[in-house]
């Protein structure tokens, strides 16, 4: 079974004329197939840095990243094989697709680059991928990104990530830039794909609620350090670290009653009891 391990990874960014920025401080975790880990933290906590290191857009200052026990290859055929195994879904659906190319092109490229299916079957495979993310292949396949909505684009991005049949997926805040009303749909799609394809998913988010809904394990990141880690329900229901508690307290809870200030009517009684 494929396992990707972060072992004591530290990342420092050097800034000209100022103190170096400590983006990650001794971070360790293991991502396995058929498992979802949620990475929760606020902006600047280091979440994106982890994503960049995983996709080899950055390298750690110290520590190791191991794939099945061996350090990840950084060049040549090994790098290519690594890239085929681990794919990323980006946050911004408007920026992650090249405005110049059609949807067909976006899905064909990974198929051809990794030779996933014989050339003659490429078209059929592209259609299959689109159906898999519940898009109407005929309507979408020859359009360009600006003709699609945000949710559709994100589904295309997911299809593109799945094209090479990876074992591991990094989803960097995949629904943050989508309308609230369609987030659940896309997340459920991701959950379904994870189950069916047996993927290991690293779900990066700042939203604790979707983290719980979607994943087995939660990691809370604060200023580059992992402050809490464990099974999803445990972390949410019985947070140990004060930062996690603060995060949970900050999530809006429709059940919670607000104490009314004098002069301001209680919303419940003002509306005749309806909450």
């Amino acid at each position, binding site marked *: 079974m494929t396992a990707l391990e972060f072992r004591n990874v530290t990342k420092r960014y050097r800034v000209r004329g100022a103190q170096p920025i400590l983006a990650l401080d001794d971070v360790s975790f293991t991502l396995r197939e058929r498992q979802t880990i949620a990475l929760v933290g606020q902006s600047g906590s280091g979440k994106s840095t982890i994503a960049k290191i995983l996709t080899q857009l950055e390298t750690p200052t110290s520590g190791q990243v191991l794939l099945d026990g061996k350090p990840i290859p950084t060049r040549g055929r090994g790098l*290519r094989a690594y890239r085929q195994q681990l794919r990323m879904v980006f946050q911004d659906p408007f920026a992650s697709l090249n405005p110049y190319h059609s949807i067909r092109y976006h899905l064909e490229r990974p198929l051809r680059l990794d030779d996933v299916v014989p050339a003659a079957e490429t078209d059929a495979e592209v259609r299959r991928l689109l159906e898999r993310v519940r898009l109407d292949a005929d309507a979408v396949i020859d359009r360009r990104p600006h003709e699609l909505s945000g949710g559709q684009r994100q589904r295309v991005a997911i299809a593109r990530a799945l094209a090479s049949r990876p074992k591991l997926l990094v989803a960097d805040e995949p629904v943050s830039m989508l309308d609230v009303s369609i987030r659940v749909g896309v997340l459920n799609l991701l959950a379904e794909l994870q189950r069916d394809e047996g993927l290991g998913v690293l779900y990066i988010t700042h939203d604790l609620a979707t983290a719980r809904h979607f994943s087995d394990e939660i990691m809370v990141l604060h200023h580059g350090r992992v402050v809490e880690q464990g099974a999803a329900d445990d972390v949410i229901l019985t947070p140990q670290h004060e930062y996690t508690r603060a995060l949970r307290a900050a999530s809006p809870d429709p059940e919670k009653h607000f104490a009314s200030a004098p002069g301001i009517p209680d919303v419940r009684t003002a509306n005749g009891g309806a909450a």
Partner: protein
Amino acid sequence: MTDTAAADMPATGIGVPETATVRTAMAEPPRRKSFWGQLAASFAMFRNPKSLAGLIIIGVFVLVAVFGDLIAPFGPLDKDYQALRQGPSPAHLLGTTHMGEDIFSQIVFGTRGVLVVGFLAGIMGTFIAVIVGVIAGYTRGWKSESLSALTNVFLVIPGLPLIIIVASQFEDPPLWVIALTLAVTGWAWGARVLRAQTMSLRNRDFIQAARANGESLPRLIFVEMLPNLLAIIASSFVGTVTAAVLGLTTLAFIGVIPISNLNWGTILFWAQSNGAFPNYWWWYVPAGLCIAILGVALSLVNFGIDEYVNPRLRSAGERARAMKKRGLSVTQAVTAVRTPSEGAS
């Protein structure tokens, strides 16, 4: 931006994904375009009225240059000693010079010199600008910085004095050498703009995604980035051609370029040396006008491209005019509200 998941929705309600299948009410799916079809479509930047007008004018000049032999009644240096310094007449549409040469023919043949050198310089200059600019934008660290410094040096050093010094070293330079000199002094502007655009493109997610897919570097630059840079490259090309045309005619007028290369500037050079001012207006006015008209045409094309790239420029004036028609002013601080029965309140 909301999903247009209008038609064909299964059960709705909390808990059921409202887009069990995203079937959207869209227009008929487009016919599949080949790569070349898409490339042609990207020249939409030339479809607006300004660009078209400019292109048509340039087209006229090109036709004149190509069919010069057929259009011009005389050779450019044919002398008619019966008609010296004569104003426009049916025989000589734009009059004659002090040696009886037909000015109209001179202008027709001069068009060739201007267009050939201008476009050649444009092509060479844009080529250099693309290579330097895109590489400087894509690489990082000292490679990028040094290319950028090189570009800035060529930007700051004043062009005309440099060209004068270089051109004066030659006795009778061939066309391509003149074009090359103009290109070498004119590429820097485009390179600078391209570098900035490439740098911003490089950090866009879709390039990162292509890299993560394992695309090779040449493919990344030529198939992923370059199409998104087309508008800038086109604009830079037009700008370089404009500068080359002005530079060439100026150099010819000064006399730095030998008169063996006939262009509109040469005509003005002769006019000035032979006392055409101020009386023989037919000698010096048409040549200058031609330069100006070609320059305007090129600028129009560039405006068209500008408006395509930055739609704000295009619509700002139209919106304001449309509002004005309804009695609203676009610069008013208070938003005027129209009531149904009357005009602006």
